[in-house]
């Protein structure tokens, strides 16, 4: 066994993910938030605007659900553990910063996927027909990784005050929703809006979900998937690099 080897570190990242799920995700309030948020958004959408078809809106809702659930908890994990001094324990264990970050990403990816699948099932019970199931599954898998990397990027500022990080991440997350074609179809967006939209990974995921449910899309499917994959790679490498630099400042 080489403790510093890739496969060994991967196993240790999985141990961190299991710990996260146990401590931070399988908790009454978190689960209730995860299930009720999309449910209430469905209701709001159903009662709201009638100008856009329901299937259009629900695709946006699935996009938002994955985005918000995959980034909901992970930005606060480092501040929590910094405060509780358990982060110091991890820092003195034979795990790399990359493995710790990756473990946190796995946990939020799984949480995001779980809640999103529930949302899709609710949508289908409401009469939505799923036209491209495989594409949707691939899209959810890649986008969940991508959004969880964003969640960890939001955690980079080395503060041990969870509420600071939560405030900051809300400031970044909400505007992103408005430029990602969730409420306004991409083809109705002004040029400047579209110019912003291409920089949001949520745009491509929403486009894929829309394709899966309505067979319409703005970008070619392969471009959507490629864009998500590229964002995922950049954000994952970026967040690991930045955390490696800021980790000592948390101690």
């Amino acid at each position: 066994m080489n403790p510093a080897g890739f496969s060994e570190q991967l196993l240790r990242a999985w141990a961190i993910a299991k710990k996260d799920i146990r401590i931070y995700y399988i908790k009454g309030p978190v689960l209730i938030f995860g299930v009720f948020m999309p449910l209430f958004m469905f209701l709001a959408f159903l009662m709201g605007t009638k100008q856009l078809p329901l299937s259009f809106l629900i695709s946006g809702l699935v996009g938002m659900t994955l985005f918000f659930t995959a980034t909901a908890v992970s930005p606060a994990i480092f501040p929590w553990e910094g405060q509780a001094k358990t982060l110091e324990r991890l820092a003195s264990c034979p795990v790399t910063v990359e493995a710790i970050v990756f473990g946190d990403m796995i946990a939020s990816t799984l949480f995001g996927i779980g809640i999103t699948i529930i949302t899709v099932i609710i949508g289908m019970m409401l009469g939505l027909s799923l036209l491209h199931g495989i594409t949707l599954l691939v899209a959810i898998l890649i986008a969940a990784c991508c959004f969880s990397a964003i969640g960890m990027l939001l955690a980079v500022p080395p503060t041990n005050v969870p509420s600071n990080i939560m405030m900051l991440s809300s400031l970044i997350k909400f505007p992103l929703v408005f430029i990602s074609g969730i409420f306004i179809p991409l083809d109705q967006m002004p040029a400047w809006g579209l110019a912003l939209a291409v920089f949001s990974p949520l745009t491509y995921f929403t486009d894929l979900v829309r394709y899966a449910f309505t067979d319409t899309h703005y970008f070619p499917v392969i471009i959507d998937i490629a864009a998500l994959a590229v964002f995922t790679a950049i954000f994952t490498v970026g967040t690991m690099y930045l955390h490696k630099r800021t980790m000592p400042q948390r101690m």
Partner: protein
Amino acid sequence: MTSVIHASDLTKIFGKSTAVDHVSFEVQGGEIFGFLGPNGAGKTTTTRMLTGVIPPDTGTATILGHDIRSEPVLAKQGFGVVPETSNAYMDLTAWQNLMLMGELYGLPRSRAEQRSSDLLGMVGLLERKDQKVQAYSKGMKQRLILAMALIHEPELLFLDEPTSGLDVQSTQMILALLRDLNRQGTTIFLTTHNMEEANRLCHRVGIIRAGKIVAIDAPEKLKTAIDRVHKIEVSFDREISGDALSGLNSVTSANRTGDKWQITTQDKDATIRSLVTFSQQNSAAIVTLNTLAPSLDDAFLRLTQEAQP
């Protein structure tokens, strides 16, 4: 014997203050090394640099043959750490905490389970293994953290003030365990501000003050190094004045403690002779007369005060 910890020129600066200032020392395999110093001396900062939690500003540390900066995982695989502040996961049970450690150190599940039951038995927590750590007392938490640090049978154990603020029972249990571990070959690096603890436990101590090492030696040698100062305890059958005592030939000072006088001197022999003469001249019979061995406390105080700028 091989050097297990090799610290060379370790320095850490926080803002304007230098917490650790060019600290160098070595710890040999099989030793219990005590890192002794008053609060704020830089013990925790040094321990954190040695265990790879924070990077030094300058200097290097080689632990078990691996540089802590360039091969952190390989170095960390070989040691266990009991940090200064308790840090098991409060929302997990003792058992879950130990299983997590087992996985982080890459132990097979069955081995981790075997080790965990053994260790929990050893620290007296087996009955409460399925209780969340939240409900534990400070002493129980500290014993659990010691067990967590030992899950992978490390060759080297770091402990940062492991007994500070603990009840007598937990303290005794932890110190006894450390002695046993050391007998079985574990090298121990321990920080403390408790001279008595260092004296009883450690083979060698390094004394740190304001970020600088002021002495490294065996406790006995540190004590004899300050053999220039002696203490004599004396009591008489009637009241006598302190001024009369401290005025005696060769006496440096005389302080009253209860019904006894504690006398500091550079020359034991001369002082005892003058005390006897004094008792005859003043017809005050001597009730007790003890020469006190120098304590590590004295050595510590002297060493840390001498270095005062």
